[in-house]
C-alpha cells in the first residue's frame, strides 16, 4: 500500500463513518425538574416525589453514604474528564396535567417523540409482538400490553409503579445481584435512580411477547439513572430488549444504570441491547458518559442468562454485562458488537463467574474502531474450585478502520480446578486496500463493500439478536458506517 492510496482509502472510510446522528433532535416540553446538585436532601426529595415505601428510602440513603466514601474506578482504558456531580440534575420529568388512564392520553409531543424514534405507543400503531416501556428522562411515560401480559401473570411495568404495586417483590430482589456498594456508579445509581423497568415472569410461563424498554435522555442538564430488574421464576422464559438514544448537545450528559437479572431453576433470560446514545461530534465534543453495571444471577440449576449488546453510541462507555453461575449446569452468554468512531472511547466486555458444577459460558466480542477512537475489550473468566467440569469459550475480534484508531484486548482468566476447559481466541484485522479494491473491481461501491465486511464481521453476534432487532442493528451500523444505506 502506498501513502497516496492509503490516504484515499482513509478519506473514503472516514467520510463513511461520519454520518450525522439521526436521533439528535430534542423535545421542547414543560418539565418538573429539581435543582442541580447531589446531597441527602436531594435523595430524600426523589424518594418523596415518587412516594416510595420506607425500605426504598433507606436503600437510597445507605447507597448515598457509601457513594461518598467510594472513588470512581480508574483501571479502565479510558480518559474520563472530571465529572462535577453537583452540576447534574438528578430528577427531570415531563409535567403531566392529570393522572393518565391510558397511553393515548399521554402528551402528543411525547408520543410524537417516540414516534420519531420509531417506537409507536398508541393503541392503533404500537408493535403487535413487543410490549414497550417508554422512559423519558427520569420517568416512564407508559407501558404497552400491561393488561394482556397480566393475564399470563407476567408483570411488566416501570420500576416506580412496581414500588407502589409490588413493594414486597422489589424489597426481596432489588440490590441482591448488584449490591449497593458494588462500585462507585452502582452506589450513585442506587441513591438517585428515578425509573426503569421491572419484569417478573412467574413459574412455568413462557412470556408470550418480547418485552422492551426504550430509554430517551432529553433534558440537557439531567442525568439518567435507570434501574432494571428482571426476575424469571422456575421454568420460565423471557426475551427482553433495550434501546437508547439522546439529543445532540454540546455538553455531556451522565448516564449510570444498573440492571439486575435473576434466573431461577430452568429459567432463561435473554437480554438484548442496542445502545445508540449521542456519541459526540467529530471533534469529540458532547455525548453521553455511559457507566453501566449489568449483572445476571443464574441462581437455579440449568438456568441460563444471555446478554447481547450492540454498542454504537456514547462518548464514553464503561460496561461489563456479567453472569454469576451459581446453579449447577447453568449457562452464561455474552455477545457484543462495540463500534467506536471519532473520539469515542469504549471499555467493555464481560465477567463470567463460575461457581456451580458443570457451568458453561461463552463470550463473543466484536470491536470495530474507526477515526481516533479507542475500543477495548476487558473480560474476566473466573472458575471456582467447586465449579468442576466447567467450560468457557471466549472469542475477541477487533476490526480497525483507518490508521488512527485503537483496539485493545484485556482478557483475565482465573481457573481454580483441573477439570475445567477454557478456550480463548482473539484476532485483529483491518479493512485493507486490497480487500476494498476487490469489491470495487467487481463493481461494488465502497459503501456497500464496508457494509458487507462489517456485517460479515458481526454476523456471529447479530444472529443472537431477536429478528427485528437484528435488522435494526444492521441498519444502525449501516447508518453509522456506510451512509448511503437506509
Amino acid at each position, binding site marked *: 500500500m502506498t501513502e497516496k492510496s492509503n490516504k484515499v482509502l482513509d478519506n473514503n472510510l472516514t467520510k463513511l463513518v461520519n454520518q450525522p446522528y439521526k436521533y439528535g433532535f430534542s423535545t421542547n416540553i414543560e418539565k418538573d425538574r429539581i435543582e442541580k446538585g447531589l446531597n441527602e436532601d436531594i435523595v430524600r426529595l426523589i424518594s418523596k416525589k415518587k412516594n416510595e415505601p420506607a425500605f426504598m428510602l433507606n436503600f437510597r440513603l445507605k447507597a448515598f453514604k457509601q457513594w461518598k466514601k467510594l472513588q470512581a474506578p480508574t483501571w479502565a482504558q479510558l480518559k474520563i474528564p472530571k465529572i462535577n456531580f453537583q452540576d447534574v440534575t438528578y430528577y427531570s420529568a415531563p409535567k403531566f396535567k392529570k393522572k393518565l388512564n391510558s397511553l393515548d392520553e399521554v402528551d402528543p409531543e411525547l408520543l410524537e417523540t417516540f414516534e420519531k424514534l420509531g417506537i409507536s405507543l398508541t393503541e392503533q400503531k404500537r408493535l403487535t409482538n413487543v410490549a414497550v416501556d417508554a422512559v423519558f428522562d427520569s420517568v416512564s411515560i407508559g407501558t404497552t400490553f400491561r393488561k394482556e401480559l397480566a393475564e399470563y401473570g407476567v408483570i411488566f411495568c416501570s420500576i416506580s409503579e412496581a414500588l407502589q404495586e409490588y413493594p414486597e417483590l422489589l424489597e426481596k430482589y432489588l440490590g441482591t445481584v448488584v449490591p449497593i456498594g458494588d462500585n462507585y456508579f452502582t452506589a450513585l445509581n442506587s441513591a438517585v435512580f428515578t425509573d426503569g423497568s421491572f419484569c417478573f415472569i412467574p413459574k412455568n410461563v413462557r412470556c408470550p411477547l418480547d418485552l422492551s424498554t426504550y430509554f430517551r435522555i432529553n433534558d440537557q442538564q439531567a442525568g439518567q439513572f435507570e434501574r432494571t430488574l428482571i426476575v424469571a421464576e422456575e421454568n420460565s422464559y423471557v426475551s427482553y430488549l433495550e434501546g437508547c438514544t439522546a439529543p445532540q448537545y454540546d455538553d455531556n450528559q451522565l448516564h449510570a444504570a444498573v440492571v439486575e437479572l435473576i434466573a431461577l431453576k430452568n429459567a432463561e433470560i435473554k437480554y438484548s441491547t442496542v445502545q445508540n446514545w449521542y456519541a459526540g461530534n467529530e471533534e469529540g465534543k458532547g455525548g453521553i458518559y455511559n457507566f453501566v453495571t449489568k449483572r445476571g444471577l443464574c441462581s437455579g440449576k440449568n438456568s441460563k442468562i444471555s446478554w447481547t449488546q450492540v454498542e454504537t453510541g456514547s462518548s464514553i462507555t464503561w460496561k461489563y454485562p456479567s453472569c454469576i453461575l451459581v446453579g449447577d449446569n447453568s449457562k452464561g452468554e455474552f455477545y457484543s458488537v462495540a463500534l467506536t468512531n471519532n473520539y469515542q472511547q469504549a471499555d467493555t466486555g464481560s465477567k463470567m463467574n463460575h461457581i456451580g458444577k458443570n457451568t458453561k459460558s461463552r463470550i463473543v466480542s466484536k470491536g470495530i474502531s474507526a477515526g481516533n477512537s479507542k475500543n477495548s475489550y476487558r473480560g474476566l473468566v473466573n472458575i471456582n474450585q467447586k465449579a468442576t467440569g466447567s467450560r468457557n469459550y471466549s472469542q475477541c475480534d477487533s476490526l480497525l478502520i483507518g490508521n488512527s484508531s485503537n483496539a485493545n484486548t484485556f482478557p483475565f482468566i482465573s481457573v481454580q480446578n483441573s477439570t475445567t476447559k477454557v478456550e480463548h481466541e482473539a484476532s485483529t484485522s483491518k479493512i485493507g486496500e486490497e480487500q476494498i479494491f476487490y469489491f*470495487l473491481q467487481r463493481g*461494488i461501491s465502497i459503501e456497500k463493500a464496508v457494509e*458487507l*465486511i462489517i456485517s460479515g464481521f*458481526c454476523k456471529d453476534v447479530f444472529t443472537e439478536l431477536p429478528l427485528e432487532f437484528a435488522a435494526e442493528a444492521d441498519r444502525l451500523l449501516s447508518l453509522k458506517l456506510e451512509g448511503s444505506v437506509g
Partner: protein
Amino acid sequence: MVQIKPILEIENLNASINDIKILNNLNLKIYPGEIHAIMGRNGSGKSTFSKIVAGHPAYNVVDGDIRFKGKSILNLEPEERSHLGIFLAFQYPIEIPGVSNEDFLRLAYNSKMKSQNKPELDPIEFLGYISKKLEIVQMDPVFLTRNVNEGFSGGEKKRNEILQFALLDSDLAILDETDSGLDIDALKIISSGINKLMNENKSIILITHYQRLLDYIKPDYIHVMQKGEIIKTGTSELAKELEIKGYEWLKKKKVN
C-alpha cells in the same frame, strides 16, 4: 465497410508507484474477438499493468492514456470501469471473512445491473441465474454458501474468479496468472470455461509465465514485457520460442 474500433487502446502509458517508474511508454491495441497474451519475467510489470487498467488507487498514471471502447477511462473509479465491462481475474484472490460468496456475487451482479438501469435480481432469481454459470467452471454449488475465497484451495479460488467473469459477462477480461497453482485437470476445466465465454465481441488478456496455458487457449498475439514496456510482439510461435530460449535472447536483441 464498417471500421471495427479497438476495445482497448493504450497509448504511451507511463505510470509510477511511490515515484518509482513502473510502466514505460507502453502501447497496446486490442480489438473485439482477440486474445492477447502478455508474458515476461517476474517483476516485469505484468500484474501492475493489469491493476492500472482496472484503476487501482496505489498507482499514478504520469503520462499517456487508456481508452476503453473509444473513451479515456483515466478519470474513472475502479467500480465505474468494472461497470463499463473491464474485468480483472486476480492472481491472488483475496479472502473476505464473514461474507458469503452468494451475497457477494449477487451484489456484484446487481451493482452492474443498477448502473445500466436494468432490473436487479432478488436472491431466489439470482440463485437460478448463478446456477447455470456454475456449470461453466464445474463448480459445486456448495461454494456459494461459503465465505468469499475463505479456505478455498488455489484452484477453487481461480474457478471462482472465472465464475465472476461469467457472471458479469464483461467485454474485456484480464486474467492475471489464472493458470498458476492449477493441476492439469483444473487447468483444462478453467481453460474450457474461458473458451466458452469468449466470443467475437469480447477480448481477453492472458498474463502468464507458461506456454502450457496457451495450449488450451489460443492467443492471437503474444507480447513480451520487460521493465514496464513491451519489447516484442509476435504470434503463438513466439511463446514456443520463449519456452525453449527463455527471455535472455530478447534482452540482448534490445541492446543491439
